[in-house]
């Protein structure tokens, strides 16, 4: 063990040991205050969980937007299954639950003074800060792509206006057009998302513009639930979806939004609709505060989700590197509960026990055709490793009825998890 990591470990354990002595004094002297940056699957879940378990602790949730549109189920909007409102939630019930929701942007964190600076000029002090900012897009990962280009070639990888824009483009495109989806290299938010998106766009095109095609230009040579997606595409959309892996020049290098051209190293594609998903990193406030230690994503303690860089700052969700946990809403929600329990334990002068962490991810290939992957995680050698490697997904060759039940489960899951956050 290196001197540095040994010192870190000792300091960490010492901190755990010191908590029982320090925490009650802190609690009674100042009343610990929790500030949460970001009101998505990590931040909103954490705030609601804390409030459900402690009616007294002051919680402030800083969220830039007036409402939250979920990335999970937003592909259904693109497929025309329901409107954007179906996946959009106000913060009214979060506020009503006794959480102070401040619609502003966090622009700076002072880990020594323990305060957060807001774009509006205010400063909020904290005893525990939870940073759950989601992702930022790395615009220059694709030549010619930027915020302006995204108005012509939407990423729709942050749900909301971009989702609505991509849907309008799909509605406006002529029959026989080519829809290109550019998939970045890992790691990115929602690894099966681009393939579900291709499926549900094909679902819309098959019924409305059956001469059209969907092409996935992929930086990678394989993807999660690949066998299940391929099987579904063969059954539901024969000949409509083409997947180009990285080794076959699938990686998108540049785009031209004026001519609607999407280019890999060797090929140019003229798109009717281009959905360009660029590379990603932790949301800017995490980077600005140095929580990523220059790597783009934030390392955390795998039990408490406390930052490895700054004490009393916790990081959740897509912004983290959390061992084998994928960047998903389900992961962020589970991490939020684990983190909330760790904060409550710290306040109460106890050592946090490790929580059960799962990731359950449904994909819809059609409204009534779902499948899933299930992961359990456990602490191995200081990181979150998979509990089991085999039989994680719906089996290939499953019946129509099984896929229907998985689709029904997916809808029920969505209602229940968004109920935890916004209900």
């Amino acid at each position: 063990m290196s001197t540095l990591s040994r010192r870190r470990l000792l300091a960490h354990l010492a901190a755990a040991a010191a908590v029982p002595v320090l925490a009650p004094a802190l609690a009674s002297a100042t009343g610990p205050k929790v500030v949460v940056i970001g009101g998505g699957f990590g931040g909103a879940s954490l705030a609601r969980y804390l409030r459900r378990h402690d009616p007294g602790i002051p919680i402030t949730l800083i969220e830039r937007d007036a409402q939250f549109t979920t990335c999970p189920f937003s592909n259904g909007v693109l497929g025309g299954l329901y409107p954007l409102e179906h996946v959009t939630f106000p913060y009214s019930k979060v506020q009503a639950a006794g959480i102070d929701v401040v619609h502003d942007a966090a622009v700076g964190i002072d880990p020594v003074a323990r305060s957060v600076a807001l774009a509006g000029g205010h400063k909020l002090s904290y005893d525990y800060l939870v940073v759950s900012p989601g992702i930022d897009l790395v615009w220059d990962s694709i030549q010619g792509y930027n915020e302006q280009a995204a108005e012509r070639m939407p990423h729709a990888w942050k749900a909301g206006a971009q989702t609505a824009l991509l849907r309008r483009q799909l509605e406006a495109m002529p029959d026989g057009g080519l829809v290109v989806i550019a998939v970045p290299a890992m790691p990115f938010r929602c690894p099966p998302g681009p393939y579900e998106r291709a499926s549900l766009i094909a679902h819309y095109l098959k019924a409305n513009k059956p001469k059209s095609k969907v092409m996935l230009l992929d930086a990678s040579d394989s993807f999660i639930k690949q066998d299940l997606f391929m099987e579904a595409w063969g059954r539901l959309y024969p000949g409509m979806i083409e997947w180009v892996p990285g080794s076959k020049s699938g990686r998108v290098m540049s785009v031209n939004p004026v001519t609607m051209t999407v280019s890999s190293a060797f090929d140019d594609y003229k798109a009717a609709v281009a959905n360009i998903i660029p590379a990603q990193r932790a949301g800017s406030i995490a980077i600005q505060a140095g929580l990523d230690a220059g790597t783009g994503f934030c390392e955390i303690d795998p039990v408490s989700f406390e930052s490895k860089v700054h004490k009393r700052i916790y990081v959740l969700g897509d912004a983290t590197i959390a061992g084998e946990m994928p960047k998903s809403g389900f992961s962020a929600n589970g991490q939020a509960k684990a983190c909330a329990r760790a904060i409550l334990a710290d306040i109460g002068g106890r050592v946090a026990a490790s929580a059960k962490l799962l990731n359950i991810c449904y994909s819809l290939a059609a409204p009534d055709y779902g499948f899933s992957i299930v992961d359990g995680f456990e602490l191995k050698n200081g990181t979150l490793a998979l509990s089991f490697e085999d039989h994680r997904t719906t089996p290939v060759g499953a019946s129509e009825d099984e896929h229907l039940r998985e689709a029904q489960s997916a809808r029920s899951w969505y209602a229940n998890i968004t109920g935890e956050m916004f209900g």
Partner: protein
Amino acid sequence: MHISCGGRWVRISAVLVAILQAGAAVGAAPDAEGLADACTSCHGIGGHSQGYIPSLAGIERATLLRELQSYRAQTGPATTTIMNRIARTYTDAELAALADYFSARPHS
């Protein structure tokens, strides 16, 4: 958090904490609520589900435990989707703790 103490004291407490944590992990009963937190993301707060996924709140303990054990034994009902896969990650004691927890939740 500020560490005002250093050197030998830190090292000794570190060892003590490690021993205590290890002891807790082996000997103590599972933390039912911590386990149940992972269930509610699908089964709803307090085990009250909306839609297709079944509610767990208030189901008789013996029934719940029998079903959970059947999932882990890969002998769940034919309509099982994901529970056979998930149940593999739980010990006997953890399944019992979950049955205790959800059977004790009020029905509505």
